[in-house]
C-alpha cells in the first residue's frame, strides 16, 4: 500500500490535469482521476512492464476519460452551445463556461480565449480531442502519443493537422484568428 501511495502522490497532479483537460470540470476530473487510481490498484498485478509505468497509467487515463466522454450521463451534464451563434449578454440564463475562474484581471481576455478554445476542442470527435489534448495541452511527444494511441507517425500527424484545421474553422469567426 505504501508503494501505491507513492505512485499516487507522484502522478496525481498529472493525471488530474489530463482528466481536467478532457472533461473541463474539476469535480469530474477528480472523480475520474480517483477512478483511474482505483483501476490501477486493482490491476497492478496485470502490469507486465512491457511499457513504462507512466505510459500504462496514461493509457488507462485516456481510455477512462474517453469512455466517460462517450457516456450518456456525461453528455447530459454538458451544456452544448454553438460557437458561431453565442448567446446574447441580455439572456436571462447566460452560458456557464466550465470552471473558468474568471477574474477581473488583465488575464481575463486570454482566459476567455482559452475557454473558447477548450469548448471548441470538446465539440470535436473524441479521437481528435484526444490527439489535441495530448499534443497541445499535455505537450506529449509524437512517440509518446504513438505509444498511447497506437497510431503510426504519418497517421498521427495527418490526423492532428485535420483536427487543427477543423478547430481553426470553428474558432476563426469568434476569435478573429486569421490575423
Amino acid at each position, binding site marked *: 500500500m505504501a508503494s501505491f*501511495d507513492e505512485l*499516487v*502522490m507522484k502522478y*496525481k*497532479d498529472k*493525471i*488530474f*490535469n489530463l482528466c*481536467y483537460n478532457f472533461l473541463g470540470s*474539476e469535480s469530474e*476530473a*477528480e472523480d475520474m*482521476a*480517483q*477512478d483511474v*487510481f*482505483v483501476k490501477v*490498484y*486493482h490491476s497492478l498485478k496485470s502490469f507486465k512492464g512491457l511499457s513504462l509505468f507512466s505510459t500504462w497509467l496514461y493509457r488507462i487515463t485516456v481510455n477512462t476519460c474517453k469512455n466517460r466522454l462517450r457516456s450518456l450521463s456525461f453528455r447530459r451534464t454538458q451544456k452544448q452551445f454553438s460557437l458561431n451563434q453565442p448567446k446574447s449578454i441580455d439572456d436571462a440564463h447566460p452560458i456557464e463556461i466550465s470552471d473558468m475562474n474568471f477574474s477581473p484581471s488583465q*488575464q481575463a481576455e*486570454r482566459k476567455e*480565449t*482559452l475557454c473558447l*478554445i477548450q469548448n471548441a476542442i470538446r465539440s470535436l470527435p473524441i479521437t481528435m480531442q484526444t490527439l489535441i489534448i495530448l499534443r*497541445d*495541452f499535455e505537450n506529449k511527444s509524437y512517440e509518446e502519443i504513438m505509444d498511447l494511441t497506437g497510431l503510426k507517425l504519418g497517421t498521427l*500527424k*495527418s490526423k*492532428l*493537422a485535420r483536427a*487543427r*484545421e477543423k*478547430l*481553426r474553422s470553428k*474558432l*476563426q469567426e469568434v476569435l478573429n*484568428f*486569421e*490575423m
Partner: protein
Amino acid sequence: MKCKQVNLLLEDYINHNLPEEQMHNIKQHLGQCEQCQKEYQFLKKYQQTLKKVEVRKAPQNFLANVHAKIDETQARKNFWQFFNLRRMEFVGAVVVGVVILLFVFPFQTHQVIQNTTVPEKTLETTKKHTQSAKLKKEILRPVKRSMHQKKLIAVKSDTYKIVLVVKRKVGPQEAFKSAKPQLPSKSSGTHVFYKSKAKVAKPLSMSSSVKEEESKDVEILDKVIPVEQNRKQMTQMQNFSNLISSLSGQTLAVLKTATNTIMNIRLPMSNYQTFISNLKKTGTIQEIKINKDTIKIINKE
C-alpha cells in the same frame, strides 16, 4: 512543396524542429500560399494561447479519497465474490435437485398408485384363466423357477398381484362363516370390496338349507383395493401394506375352509414375503407361480 506536406510540417516549423533546407522551403511556400499562411498564423496564435494554460493540481485530500474509493470497491468486490462461480454451481445444483424432486417425484408416485389399482379386465381374465383346463395343468406343475422368480422380484416394481387358487372341498356354510367375519373393516384406511363365489361339491350328508345353497355359485372373493390416487395417500399405502400383512392370517383361514378360492390382491413385495412365509407355514401351499406381475399361489387339495 505541396500544401498537404506543409500542413503536416507546420507545427515543427513553428517549433524550429526541422532541418535548414525544409525550414527554407516552407518559408518560401508560406510567402506564396495564402491558405497555408492562414493555417500557419492560426497555429502560431493557438500554440501561444495554449502555452498560457495553467497546470491544475489535484485536491489536497486526493489520496485519502482514492483510499476511500478503493475500500468501497473492495467491499463491493467481496460481496460479489461471495457469489462466485463455484458457489453458484452448488446453488444451481441444489435448485435443479429441488425442481426434479418437485416435478418428477409426484409423477413417480402417481405411477406406483396406478400400478396398485386393479383394472376390471384383469379380474375377468384371471377368472377365465383359472377356469380353463390349461391352467389346471399349469397348477399341477412343480415349481422349478426359483432363480427366475428372484430375478423378477428384483427387476419388477414392488407391487405384485397375488392370485390365490385354492382347491379344497369344503362346505359353503363353513366357507362363509370363516371368511365373512374376518373381513377387514373400512377403518383400516383402505377400501376393500369383498365378493365370494365358489362352486361347492355336494357333501354326502347335507341338510335342506345346505341343499338350497348347492345350486348357487359361490364366488369367494375378488379383493379390489383401490388406493386413492393422491400423493397424500402415500401413508395409506403403508396402511395398505399393514392390512395385507394382517390379512395373510385371515386369508389362511379362508384358504383352509374355502374351495376354489380366487384371491386377487395387489401386494407390495415386502408384504409378499411375509405373506408367502405365512402361507408356507400352514403347509397348504402346493405351488407358487410368479408371472410378469401376478403371483399365483395354489393351495394343496
